[in-house]
């Protein structure tokens, strides 16, 4: 049979999370189709068709899918589910929103946030904020899976899949999109950035985050935050890295004024290199940092900026 990957996109751009989910799907060993549900999303479908390993791209272009509202997404995926024995989505806030509905209606369990495909029916997934890894085997008729994209490489370009329109399912008519307030930033997105500089409670205010912005601009980095900094209102919720926020694994993660609560470490401990700046030398973040600087961040960050300027950044 075949596997179906639900694409993550914003009607204009296909997100990297989709290419990573395709890689997980390919590892299941069956042919891979991608469903692009959106409005005016033809360009996204073309991008999906170029991913290596994708055999066919299905496009449901309809106003009810423009914002991937969960109830119409459920109806659409269920209308196609009969042709597939595995359905995968990235574990983004969209995937987490509609996928359990699909699993429940198919009367099968969902396997959340897989880290690894061990075999076609066996997967590794994190529990307890990543402090334990569970290996689970499913005997369900259909596999419904969300994928933690940080542990899979993006599928390369080079494919030339066929694109086929599919009809919209009837809108259940019980929910509707009202509005959204998206953070605008010229910087890369947290989940795809190669470098991330994050601030914690130690930043003391939202204004002080501009110190991190300056370094981020030099390094083409994304800016993140700990839960404490978000709860304190320094930065918006979409900055949050951690167990219940975003999970990231960049080449370099710089933690500034972050003590290193278990819940924060859960979101960043798979980064390739971790650097930490904190004035408390006992801070748990130093136990996992490759490079630790015990210093007052209000002195260290301007110095770091100056040093980068000197080096031509």
């Amino acid at each position, binding site marked *: 049979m075949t596997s179906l990957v639900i694409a993550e996109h*914003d009607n204009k751009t296909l997100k990297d999370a989709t290419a990573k989910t395709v890689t997980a799907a390919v590892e299941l060993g069956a042919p891979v189709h991608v469903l692009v549900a959106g409005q005016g999303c033809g360009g996204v479908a073309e991008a999906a068709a170029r991913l290596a390993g994708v055999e066919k791209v299905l496009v449901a272009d309809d106003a009810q899918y423009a914002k991937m*509202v*969960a109830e119409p997404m*459920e109806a659409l995926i269920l209308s196609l589910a009969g042709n597939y024995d595995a359905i995968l989505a990235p574990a983004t*806030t*969209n995937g*987490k*929103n509609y*996928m*359990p*509905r699909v699993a*429940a*209606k198919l009367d*099968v*369990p969902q396997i959340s946030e897989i880290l690894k495909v061990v075999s076609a029916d*066996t997967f590794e997934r994190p*529990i*307890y*904020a*990543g402090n*334990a*890894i*569970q*290996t*689970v*085997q*499913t005997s369900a008729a259909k596999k419904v899976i969300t994928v933690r994209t940080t542990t899979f490489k993006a599928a390369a370009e080079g494919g030339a899949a066929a694109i086929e329109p599919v009809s919209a399912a009837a809108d259940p008519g*019980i*929910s509707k999109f*009202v509005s*959204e*307030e*998206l953070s605008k930033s010229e910087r890369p997105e947290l*989940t795809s950035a*190669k*470098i991330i500089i994050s601030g914690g409670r130690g930043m003391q205010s939202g204004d002080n985050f501009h110190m991190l912005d300056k370094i981020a601009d030099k390094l*083409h980095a994304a800016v993140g935050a700990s*839960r404490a900094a978000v*709860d304190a209102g320094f930065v*918006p*919720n*979409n900055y949050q890295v951690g*167990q219940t926020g*975003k999970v990231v694994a960049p080449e*370099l993660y710089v933690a500034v004024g972050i003590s290193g609560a278990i819940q924060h470490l859960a979101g960043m*401990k798979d980064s390739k*290199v*971790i650097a930490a*700046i904190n004035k408390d030398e006992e801070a748990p973040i*130093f*136990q996992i940092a*490759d*490079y*630790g*600087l*015990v*210093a007052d961040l209000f002195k260290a960050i301007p*110095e*770091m900026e100056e040093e980068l300027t000197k*080096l031509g950044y």
Partner: protein
Amino acid sequence: MKVLVPVKRVIDYNVKVRVKADQTGVDLANVKMSMNPFDEISVEEAVRLKEKGKASEVVAISIGPQQASETIRTALAMGADRGILVKTEGELEPLAVAKILKAICEAEQPGLVILGKQAIDDDSNQTGQMLAALLGWPQGTFAHKLELGDGTAQIEREIDGGLQTVEVKLPAIMTTDLRLNEPRYASLPNIMKAKKKPIDEKSPADYGIDTAPHLKVLKVSEPPKRQAGVKVKTAAELVDKLKNEAGVLP
């Protein structure tokens, strides 16, 4: 309008979990257990609705061992009116939990069910969405703000790019995110009062639900450990190491 609040008993969020040497699970012996933190936010939201006169009754539900009644007592001390304990042995998958909750919803006819977006033990993030689908109800997950209208609710949600507002018809399911509210601490008089509030005891069989798991846990293992690296003395040395030793600067 009646509001149902399912609450889960989990390892306290401050406890560092240990994987058992035989890899069958994590060590739960003599470990502090508490209400799942997201569920505290759910209880708080439900109690606030009652205080504002928008909810007529708040019912706390827990599915688990006998000790889960303590978790229900915590909800009652925060202001819930009564409890339902569905006694089960062993781990239940989110789908089984959702099926039991569906049966309870059919009996209780709530206008709103508020659940935590995920439990901090299995981190599944499924139950609320599954319950909504089984009932054919709409959902507002990862809620940041709730506004009740006439037969509808506007729910502002925390999403990857920022915030999104959806409007759902009631009855509906809402799952809570961190910034929805700050849960209260139960006062001593309220803890005493909670002891007198009723808790109904049930079993999955009362609802005709088979709770046998569909997934087989082959093992639970430790994640790869990271070692502490080196300390540097200055910001300049840090930049130098990142550039020349680690090679991670562009």
